[in-house]
């Protein structure tokens, strides 16, 4: 009743209507308040805290209001010994991760095209299962598998008469450990997204193709793949765009004193200098450097993709 009256009241100015609408939704606004406040405190105030990248932060200072030092932290980082190394390691990890990008897609195609329903169910459950394990557990499993003398891999190698591998003492081996465990824990999860996209494959098209004598491989190549291409491109853009933003959580668990030259990446460096080393300004500066490069990369990859394929993510 009330709504009708509002709608029919042509003489009322639109501002008045708006005010009425806002008042009508007062309960809805109240429901948003906790999330608005929490987001402001824990998301927006830290963004303001980025100013610390240009300040000399001491513990007693007010938040984000320390003595300004300009680009001091940035020049210190770029001239420092770790700069080149952490950037190189971050890029190696992300390029290797992107090379594994087709694997979930292939798994999804396998799951979608198998002619055995029980096998599909079992394989999907099995490949998804590792995703539930925490990173700590994944790394624990790596630890027990690759342990020096009593790890499974070394025991088998020993039995086969080959020499043992020192997984945690050889710096470069941290790359395969990171990448392979990554495939193990998230391939099945990522495949689910493609499976969802594959669900929209047009059955009439498949039947028409079958009548025309198209084999399974042709149906995969000419019908299924084109159907999920937008999904694939979206995820590819996101992956390439986020290349520079490798998280610290897993790497910090894989680090040992011996493999640091290959396992120190930007985010672990930020964590160590900041949280453990208490160089707050410096650490924020390094983090800012990483975020800026990431955002620029994401935006430019997005633009490139829009130009080439017409698909954009943001």
């Amino acid at each position, binding site marked *: 009743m009330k709504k009708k009256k509002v709608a029919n009241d042509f003489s009322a100015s639109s501002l008045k209507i708006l005010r009425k609408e806002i008042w009508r*939704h007062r*309960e*809805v*606004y109240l*429901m*948003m308040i*906790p999330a*608005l406040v*929490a*987001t402001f405190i*824990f998301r*927006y*105030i*830290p*963004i*303001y*805290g*980025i100013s610390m990248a240009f300040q000399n*932060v001491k513990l007693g200072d007010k938040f*984000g209001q320390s003595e300004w030092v300009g680009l001091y932290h940035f020049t210190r980082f770029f001239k420092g010994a770790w700069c080149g190394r952490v950037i190189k390691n971050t890029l190696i990890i992300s390029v290797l991760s992107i090379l594994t990008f087709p694997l979930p897609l292939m798994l999804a195609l*396998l799951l979608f*095209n*198998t*002619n055995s329903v029980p*096998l599909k169910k079992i*394989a999907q*459950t*099995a*490949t*998804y*299962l590792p995703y*539930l*394990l*925490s*990173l*700590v557990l994944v790394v*624990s*499993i790596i*630890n*027990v598998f690759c342990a*020096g*003398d*009593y790890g499974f891999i070394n025991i088998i190698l020993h*039995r086969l008469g080959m020499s043992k591998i020192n997984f*945690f*003492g050889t710096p470069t081996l941290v790359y395969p450990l990171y990448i392979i465990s990554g495939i*193990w824990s998230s*391939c099945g999860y990522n495949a*689910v997204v493609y499976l969802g996209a594959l669900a929209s494959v047009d059955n009439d098209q498949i*039947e028409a193709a*079958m*009548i025309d004598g198209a*084999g*399974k*491989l042709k149906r995969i190549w000419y019908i299924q793949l084109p159907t999920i291409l937008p999904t694939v491109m979206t995820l590819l853009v996101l992956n390439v765009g986020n290349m520079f933003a490798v998280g610290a959580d897993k790497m910090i*668990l894989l680090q040992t004193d011996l493999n640091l030259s290959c396992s120190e990446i930007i*985010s672990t460096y930020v*964590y160590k200098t900041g949280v453990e080393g208490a160089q*707050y300004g410096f650490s924020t500066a390094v983090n800012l450097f990483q*975020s800026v490069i990431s955002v620029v990369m994401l935006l430019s990859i997005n633009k490139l993709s829009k130009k080439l394929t017409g698909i954009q993510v943001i």
Partner: protein
Amino acid sequence: MAKRNTAFLVRKAVRKKRKFSDVLLDVIINTLLVIAAIAAIYPLWNVLISSVSNTNAISNGEVILWPVGFNLSAYEKMFAEKQIWVGFRNSVIYTTAACIMDFVVTLPCAYALSRRSLPGRKGFMYYFTLTMYFSGGTIPLFLLISKLGWVDTPLALIIPSCTCVFELVIVRNFFEHNISEALFDAARIDGMGFFKFFVKIALPLSKAILAVFFLYRIQAHWNAYLGARMYLYSPNLKTLQQVIQAISAKLDTSLMEDMTSAEIVYAVQQKQLLKYAVVIVSALPLAIIYPFMQRYFVQGVMVGAVKE
């Protein structure tokens, strides 16, 4: 009717002259799937059988498919470690509290953002989604928490994580597509306000998305490690993940070439065995609920993939 007939005819025709290449492809697909499934499961299986085997059998490489020299000494040892129980208790408490917090903060907001008639809806949406792309980073948040005096208190793990934008968007999408406007209008005529509608009608109709929401959040809180490492120092506050990490990182990083004493060898073997048991016990809760919840996990991915 006609459609079903054609489908039937097609299937019949195709079955008659299935190409050899198709049969071959099926064999390849199924073989690869079997390999993938085994590769995914084997590491866990190996840890499981090792945890109940004899240490000498493990070192000799006899434990490959089945346990050898079955015994439960690793588990006895593990249950005697007090720290594991403290960590387990803490993780249960933190996860429960944090999930309640997430629910109270995120769900009403997701519902609010799903009301199409809400003035300023788009602006509020930007306010939340912007934080997915820009963040202050590790240190500003860390200092903020320190300023609040929450370091070495569970609050640091329970409160800030309630700003879970990804889940917010998923739940909002669900509300928007599944709770019809007509239903709300009908309830309004009966004198129901927005909040009452949310509690009495929208929530009970959204059990599927609630399951997804809680599974995602439980997994996130239960598995969180870096935050706990940053904020919690006291032994009686540590989470299960911290305890597992401490156990699994001990004594295994280098090849112990200089180990001659049989006692040290024995100690290392026992430690290794303990690690197997710890992995199994901490993976167990999720592995048990997983088969029942699998469809919700998959559903969550699908809802999340719906583009606005």
